[in-house]
């Protein structure tokens, strides 16, 4: 695998994102595998933002620890990103400022702002940066010019011309000034690659999984799911409502599910906290419900533009009282797509709440992925009673919450004759007409609800094991840490270490057989949590035991984990 990392940084409002997006788009079209991470702040203009792309000949799920090429529009970009630079990096800075503190790191000043200003619009210094990038990567500027031409086509020829000009001048400037060029290997992917973010994949997965209704409230970093769905659901018979708050959003999704639609809500931590009571309703009334929590830095408003896996506790244990629930943690962007389909099938089958927990890193990052396989998409209907079966029953004999062996009861949909029932938030009996405080009934219904998931086999795909048996060290993570953990494991393996990696795609019900077996086998386990208190570690301690084997490695500064820190920690533990 050959690879290179590139980053552009500056103030918010300087077009940093579009610089990265154009480069990503061109590279992706050329058949390179890319992974792009956006670093931004909770303000609209100013501050510091950067866009990083890892370019590779193989699929990559992470943007990489280091930066080979850093394009800096300001000193702050250098300050904030210096730690990622190495001796073979190059810093290409806007010669409008004099870079400080680069010591021996090679650098090269290009008059980016000046060039743009001369072209009549200083804001297009980002286009100059694209030209510079093309030159630095030793790429033909043509595809960049084309991309920009088609992107700005609607804005008129003059705009297109200026932007193209800016790219060309950036290209020329760099070639004149600087020899050091990174050569990307030739690359043509087998099939055209999709450039897609985790949030887009989740939206697309929801649609493919039969979701036809989204009720949500805007919140970083989840809103892109809503954007994707509002632009697509209506074409497939669906609707999207922006609700007044997350309480209403969750309940609207519950209403639509009750009415027979596959419906969901998407949010992040603060919104998820507001949904706690509603989650209990879905659990009690056995109404299917899919919630996506794109986690961000907490607590409270916290770090809205940073990543964290710190809602796990609330996802697993939130809402008063007790309900069965399924918690899925997609590990990659492709996984975001497929796990959403699973989520809808499972919610319908088990008539329960399914929470899909991603995070800012997974949700907002964009990756080149090989085409999603249509044949792997399976919408499975279940649990719905037919009109004929209802017609066969005595009037009023239908038991919505029938106590069955499986714990799953037949479900009718409003409009079906003879299927009337009340979905109650109070305890109720099989008949589902009125609340019921009787203690024997309570026990029966409680057990029925919790029995439902006994047929669910989380071990089937909820835990994946990579590497040797009986390892000296087992790395354990869930969700978005997959990429860094698997790269770390491979590196450790290469270094001759006997290290395995267990990755959790389902946290509840926990794939306890697989986890228990893997933990038993391993000498030690390094649990990698992207939060402060070690929430995944806590879960495993609770469910698996063997505390003495567990060591925590965690990160809580709002950044995704790095491969390097995991390797370093693993080596430390292995000593």
């Amino acid at each position, binding site marked *: 695998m050959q690879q290179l990392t590139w980053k552009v940084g500056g103030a918010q409002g300087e077009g940093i994102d579009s610089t990265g997006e154009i480069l990503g*788009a061109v590279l*992706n079209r050329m058949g390179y595998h890319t992974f792009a991470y956006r670093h931004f702040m909770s303000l609209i203009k100013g501050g510091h933002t950067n866009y990083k792309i890892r370019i590779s000949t193989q699929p990559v799920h992470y943007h990489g620890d280091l930066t080979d090429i850093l394009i800096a529009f300001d000193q702050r970009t250098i300050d904030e990103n210096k730690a990622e630079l190495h001796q073979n990096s190059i810093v290409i800075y806007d010669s409008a400022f004099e870079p400080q503190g680069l010591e021996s790191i090679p650098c090269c000043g290009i008059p980016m702002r000046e060039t743009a200003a001369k072209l009549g619009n200083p804001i297009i210094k980002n286009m100059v940066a694209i030209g510079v990038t093309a030159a630095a990567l030793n790429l033909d500027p043509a595809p960049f010019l084309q991309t920009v031409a088609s992107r700005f086509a609607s804005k008129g020829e003059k705009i297109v011309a200026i932007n193209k000009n800016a790219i060309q001048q950036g290209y020329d400037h760099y070639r004149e000034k600087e020899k050091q060029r990174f050569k990307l290997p030739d690359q043509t992917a087998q099939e055209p690659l*999709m*450039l*897609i973010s985790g949030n887009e994949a989740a939206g*697309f997965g929801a649609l493919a999984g*039969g979701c*036809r*209704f989204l*009720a949500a409230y805007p919140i970083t970093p989840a809103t892109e799911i809503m954007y994707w769905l509002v632009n697509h*659901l*209506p074409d*497939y*018979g*669906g*609707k*999207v*409502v922006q*609700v*007044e*708050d997350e*309480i*209403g*959003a969750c*309940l*609207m999704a*519950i*209403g*639509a*599910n*009750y*009415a*027979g*639609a*596959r*419906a969901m809500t998407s949010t992040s931590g603060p919104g998820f906290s507001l949904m706690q*009571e509603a989650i*209990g*309703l879905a659990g009690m009334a056995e109404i299917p419900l899919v919630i996506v929590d794109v986690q961000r830095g907490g607590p409270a408003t916290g770090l809205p533009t940073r990543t964290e896996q710190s809602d796990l506790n609330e996802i697993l244990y939130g809402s008063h009282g007790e309900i069965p629930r399924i918690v899925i943690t997609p590990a990659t962007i492709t996984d975001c797509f497929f796990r959403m389909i699973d989520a809808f099938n499972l919610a319908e089958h088990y008539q329960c709440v399914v929470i899909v927990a991603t995070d800012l890193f997974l949700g907002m990052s964009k990756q080149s992925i090989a085409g999603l396989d*249509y044949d792997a*998409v399976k*919408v499975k*209907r279940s649990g719905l009673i037919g009109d004929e079966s209802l017609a066969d029953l005595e009037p009023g004999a239908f038991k919505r919450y029938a106590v069955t062996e499986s714990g799953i009861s037949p479900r009718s*949909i*409003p*409009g*079906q*004759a*003879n*299927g*009337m*029932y*009340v*979905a*109650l*938030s*109070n305890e109720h009996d099989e008949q589902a*007409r*009125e*609340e019921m405080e009787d203690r024997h009934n309570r026990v029966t219904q409680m057990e029925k609800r919790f029995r439902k998931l006994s047929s669910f086999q989380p071990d089937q795909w909820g835990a994946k094991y990579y590497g040797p048996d009986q390892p000296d060290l087992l790395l354990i993570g869930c969700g978005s840490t997959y990429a860094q953990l698997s790269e770390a494991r491979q590196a450790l393996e290469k270094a001759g270490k006997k290290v395995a990696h267990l990755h959790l795609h389902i946290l509840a019900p926990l794939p306890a057989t697989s986890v228990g077996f893997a933990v038993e086998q391993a000498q030690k386990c390094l649990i990698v949590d992207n939060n402060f208190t070690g929430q995944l570690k806590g879960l495993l301690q609770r469910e698996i035991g063997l505390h003495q084997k567990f060591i925590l490695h965690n990160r809580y500064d709002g950044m995704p984990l790095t491969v390097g820190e995991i390797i370093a920690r693993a080596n430390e533990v292995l000593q």
Partner: protein
Amino acid sequence: MNVRLTDYRGARPTWCPGCGHFAVLGCLQQATYQLGLPPELVVVVAGIGCSGKIVQYYGGYGVHSLHGRTIPVATGIQIANPGLTVIAAGGDGDGYGIGLNHWVQAMRRNVDITYLVMDNHIYSLTTGQYSPTSRKGFVSKTTPKGSAEMHLRPLEIALTARASFVAQGFSGDVKQLTKIIKAAIEHKGFSHVNIFSPCVTFNRLNTYEWFKERIISLDAQDYSPDDRLQALAKVMEADGVLTGIIFQEERPLFHNELPGVQDQPLTKSPLELARDQFQQLAAEFLS
């Protein structure tokens, strides 16, 4: 279709004898019966309170939702399947206290549901605390010295929040109330119906008599409910204690205004994407 009035019966009510909520249940049953709506096409979404139990006693589909959360659930159902008649029902605490925000937003959206608020000026199921519609000075378990707050005016809020149908009924006048509920259900759009529904157990102030002495019925007046400002004036003049249809207008419906297909309910749209649809969507991501 051969529906009988008894088809609208659910469980046996457990309300206190004399409770105003009986009349609301009865009138709703009558109204849906008279409109010939088969019970399987009616969904009642109720809140938590004595009032909310109406869903258990009515014979259709229903959701006994959370306290204050009738409107969003009802909205979700209505958008998913506009072929259903969706009735939200709850108490004054449920709707004007904890649930007020959902109500206000649904009115301006003009969600096509009927909302029956069984307003007894008190929290009853929790055995007697003042509610948003309790008058200032109202003595209750949480206001032993009298409440410190001016009461909420639901009709005025409904009017300014742009409900397209605003009415008020009284459990003591089932004829009028049935008529109002029928009109509310027939109205296309958000129908807000506030119903004075006395709690005979905990509210010793706002009794049937109290209401009877004060209520002005619009039915007896030469009043046409088509001017919002005039309706507001009327309501203010009567200090909110009037009955009848106060305002009605035709306005586009939320579920129709939302982008998406209109010719069939959401619940009937196919769940699977065809191969070409799928590939077309995937192709949007090719850069």
